[in-house]
């Protein structure tokens, strides 16, 4: 049996339609869930934080609340980013790898290290020496 006759006989149309709808709906559900995951986590973190606040008057500062705070710092202009990152670069010496700067900035809890480093690259505050090594290109008065 061949052609449309075979497709209809073996229920091919229904299998193809149902199959594609199932896989699509399954991944849409997964997409929806994971798109809300960080919000749910933040909600729980905030809940725990506020409970802790009630228990002790000192404010609790969790990693995710720090992240939330970090998001508000996204609008820092390049000069502010430079002022935040220059001390870190100074500590790393005259030349360093970007991963070192990234790790240091992460350990200091600076907001969006990869975005900030990208900004620094684009503003020529960080310049390449080759072989993945960079140096700080800002005079001290910056």
């Amino acid at each position, binding site marked *: 049996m061949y052609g449309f006759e075979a497709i209809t006989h073996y229920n091919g*149309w229904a299998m193809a339609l149902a199959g594609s709808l199932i*896989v699509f709906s399954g991944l*849409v559900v997964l997409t929806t869930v994971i798109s809300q995951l960080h919000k749910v986590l933040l909600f729980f973190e905030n809940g725990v934080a506020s409970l802790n606040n009630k228990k002790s008057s000192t404010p609790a500062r969790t990693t995710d609340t720090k992240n939330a705070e970090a998001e508000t710092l996204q609008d820092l202009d390049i000069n502010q980013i430079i002022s935040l990152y220059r001390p870190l670069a100074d500590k790393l010496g005259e030349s360093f790898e970007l991963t070192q700067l990234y790790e240091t900035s992460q350990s200091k809890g600076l907001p969006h290290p990869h975005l900030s480093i990208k900004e620094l690259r684009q503003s020529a505050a960080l310049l390449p020496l080759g072989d993945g090594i960079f140096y700080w290109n800002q005079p001290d008065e910056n």
Partner: protein
Amino acid sequence: MDLLIQFLTNTGYYLADYRNIIMLFVGGLFLYLGTAKGYEPLLLIPIGFGVLVGNVPFFKGFGLGIYESNSVLHYLYFGVTTGLYPSIVFLGLGAMTDFSALLARPVLMLLGAAAQMGIFFTLISALALGFLPKEAASIAIIGGADGPTSIFLTAKLAPHLIGPIAIAAYSYMALIPVIQPPIMRLLTTRKERLIRMSDLREVSKKEKIIFPAVGILLCCFLAPASIPLLGTFFFGNFLKECGRTERLAQTARTSIIDIATIFLGFTVGASTQGDVFLTPKSVGIFCLGAVAFSIATASGLIFAKILNLFLKDKINPLLGASGVSAVPGSAREVHLVGQREDPTNFLLMHAMACNSSGVIGSAICAGILWSFMV
């Protein structure tokens, strides 16, 4: 003298069949592509060598061939026919996969879903060409561009087609640099190829830990037949992300996946004995495989363009092509095509997100097709 004649009639030279010779050339071609050209060497070299081994003519009944029940090759092939090797490969894949980009931009998962349309189009085409439903489903899964998934489903539904389907799936995976770029250029404009993806938000460790648990529950509740693949895949990813089992994750993504890949490739190659492999059906499978892979690529691209009609933050439609689950070949190709237009445009991370969702999508499709055929 009789002894000598008897010996000579039992040698490979005497028993050689034109089909063995053709397959020996195919095996040689795979070895050449893998070694000299560097096309998917980790796959093509074990398969190519397996093809050579499987096509050495031998005296039947000595327990030498892969289809003879007491042969060593037959025992090794057990991992293919039961779906064991694909499950183990998925464990290693899970332990290698970083879902950060996908978690940061979940909409990219839809491209992985769209690219699975090639599977269902091929299902219909294979039925129209006269293949039985179980055979058609096994052929269709080639459109997922996922070797282990294709082998797994074929082992369950049409074990007699494992050889041609596995060879077709892996061949097309190796030929990604040849097949995908023309389709990408045909279906996208230069302006679209130049679209830059916005920076991804930082994903917390907790999200990465929770994702495999959520993923396994949502996907396998929907298609329980995909448990053997997705169960190990998400388990491997959990080992990687939980932060307590780095040693196990390291073993899964190195030694374990390497061992499974060696035996999987070698035995699949050895299963292509000329007399079993070279049939009109194999030709049909190869043609349908090419169609499946091309349609999967095209549907991902077209869906990305459709998504852009609704999204404020546009996505580069090239990413749609990486919705097939050929990890990381198609992501790499998308990145390269993007860079040919603009060398400062880095699409790799975003393409890997689509790629990993393609792995999940094709495993779900395998589960769905299997359950349709039961």
